[in-house]
């Protein structure tokens, strides 16, 4: 199944991208996402229903989810640096214990402050999509950009999503679409970047490398 999905992603859907939907006007989905700004995350099913029930196509439903997540969730620099430090420092059982502890921290922060690390973005996209009846998975791998810390090369550092729309698989990165971190002000700057929404796979793969083509399959 996993292998089939990868083949599907990099084979049949090699050119699956947002331009597949030239007739779709995403403004309605965007305005629905805006209507539910700051909606609590205590109940993801209800949020998914609110975002998608008035939309008829799969691409619009996914757009509303994606836009909501990118516009309402902030990256948390404290969590990010803490995790990065411990993941490079520890191995084996100690690392496993840390991962478990850190997961709880991330979910608490996500619920209470709507802040997270990048897997938190990918998690929300996956869960909201599931409740909206869309097939969506988290992909873990390596991200590449000019500011990457060379000491962390070789350690999985990023998560993004693949989503199936009208029987084709598409890639997207909600973390990088949501904004950038200002290191001087120690603040996350929300700045929606549409380029990573259903990006053309050949472009996407220039900065995103999946670990062994791994698609996390939890259900």
């Amino acid at each position, binding site marked *: 199944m996993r292998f089939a999905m990868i083949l599907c992603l990099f084979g049949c859907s090699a050119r699956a991208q947002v331009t597949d939907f030239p007739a779709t006007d995403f403004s309605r989905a965007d305005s629905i996402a805006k209507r539910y700004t700051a909606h609590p*995350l*205590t*109940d*993801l*099913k*209800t949020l998914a*229903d609110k975002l998608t029930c008035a939309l008829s196509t799969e691409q619009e439903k996914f757009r509303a989810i994606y836009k909501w997540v990118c516009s309402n969730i902030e*990256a948390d*620099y404290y*969590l*990010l640096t803490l*995790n*990065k430090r411990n*993941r490079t420092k520890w191995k084996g059982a100690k690392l496993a214990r840390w*991962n*478990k502890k*850190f*997961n*709880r921290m*991330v*979910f608490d922060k*996500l*619920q209470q402050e709507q802040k997270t*690390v*990048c*897997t*938190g973005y990918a*998690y929300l996209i996956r*869960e909201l999509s*599931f*409740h909206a*009846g869309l097939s969506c998975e*988290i992909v*873990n791998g390596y*991200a*590449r*950009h*000019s*500011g*990457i810390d060379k000491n962390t090369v070789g350690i*999985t*550092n*990023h*998560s993004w999503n693949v989503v199936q729309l009208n029987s084709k698989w598409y890639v997207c990165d909600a*973390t*990088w679409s949501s904004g*950038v*971190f*200002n*290191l001087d002000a120690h603040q*996350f*700057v929300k700045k929606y970047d549409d380029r990573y929404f259903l990006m053309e796979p050949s*472009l996407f793969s*220039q*900065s995103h490398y999946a670990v062994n083509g791994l698609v*996390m399959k*939890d*259900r």
Partner: protein
Amino acid sequence: MKSKLEIFAQGSGRSWKTAIVSLVILFISAAAFAQSTSQTIRGIVKSAENNQPVPGTNIYLKSQSSVGTFSDSQGQFEFPRPLKAGDVLVFSFIGLKTTEWIISDQTAGYVVIEMAEDPIQMVDEILTEGDETPRVAASAKRIRKVKANH
């Protein structure tokens, strides 16, 4: 000697009694059959990690997601519609692995649902101001090259 009419009335009375008894038996059987194929599901949602109740879990019918309920402050729930074998309930709570639970003929009226923590591995790489992805960097390089050539 009874008239033909009296005999008919007597016979007819017996027929009615038989018919009523048959109908009652039929209704009881139908009710019993309905009970065996469809039942009210109550239960509790617990964390698989620490066995503690999970309040606020969204529980809904997969085939008709508008039908659902939440677990209460003690993790208890009663699904608002009788369920039959083959129905699938979805249990969802942030941070816990979304669980699908299929009703079978053997399902008891009271169930215990254990939800495990979501095993995803948290990793993180955000862009900071000024960072360029290879695509953007390549474009900038091309622009510089074009400018240099003119």
